[in-house]
């Protein structure tokens, strides 16, 4: 099996369990704050399975940035697309956002803005470390 596929599955399996844990915490907080909050068994099952898959894909997708023979644009595209599709599908199937194009458009805008903001902060902070390391090496 391809090393990257193996790494994708490995990371996915390592971190996939965090999805249901987080959704459990969110539901618990909602149950404390909302007076009328209840879920059917089907809704709970759907939330557990979908957030497991979401966390699995999110963790696995980090491998895309390490595929050396991929261009930067390609790895960025696949990473963004995987995250965007998994988040939007998870939110829609759980009815956390309605399936309406106006809402999806707003969600897409917010998601893209958040993604690229975090991305640039990470890149800038790594660049700063890189410059300091290079100064020391010289």
């Amino acid at each position, binding site marked *: 099996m391809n090393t990257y596929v193996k790494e994708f599955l490995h990371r996915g399996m390592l971190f996939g369990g965090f999805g249901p844990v987080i959704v459990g915490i969110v539901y618990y907080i909602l149950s404390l704050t909302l007076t009328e909050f209840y879920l059917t068994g089907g809704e709970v099952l759907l939330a557990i399975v979908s957030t497991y898959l979401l966390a699995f894909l999110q963790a696995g997708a980090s491998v895309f*940035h390490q595929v050396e023979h991929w261009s*930067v644009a390609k*790895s960025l595209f696949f990473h963004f697309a995987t995250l965007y599709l998994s988040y939007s599908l998870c939110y829609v199937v759980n009815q956390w956002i309605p399936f309406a194009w106006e809402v999806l458009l707003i969600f897409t805008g917010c998601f893209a803005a958040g993604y690229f903001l975090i991305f640039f902060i*990470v*890149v800038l902070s790594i*660049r700063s470390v*890189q410059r300091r*390391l290079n100064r020391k*090496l010289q």
Partner: protein
Amino acid sequence: MKCTIITDPNREEEVQIFVHQKNDLAQRIEALVLEDSREWIGFWEREAVRLRTEEIVYFIVEDGKVWARTTEGRFWIKERLYTVESLVGERFVKIHQSCLANIQQMKRFDTSIAGTLLVTFQNGDREYVSRRQLKTVKERIGITK
């Protein structure tokens, strides 16, 4: 303590330390000299080659084996990576789970667009630095914060 370096290509290389009693500095110099003169047996096909620690660019685990990369090529060695790590001392630093890199052989660091730190070695090879190891790498290279 006085320090004298005598350059003589005709004599065997040797370090002698004269102290009133064994102290921390003498022990550190001794450890450094021992690390530097340590030799490894590297295998490539049917050949066995002696490798000096200083000529090894990095040790890496690939296909379940530990490989020593030098400018001459790569050679698999019998030791496990954690054993190597305990023997090479501070000259080497772990840059990710499977790679132990010689700090003296590092040429420069680059940032990939993905936000990963990459190190380029003197021989042109590149390896990534994992986020987990970044703190250790910074400390070893001399960045405190």
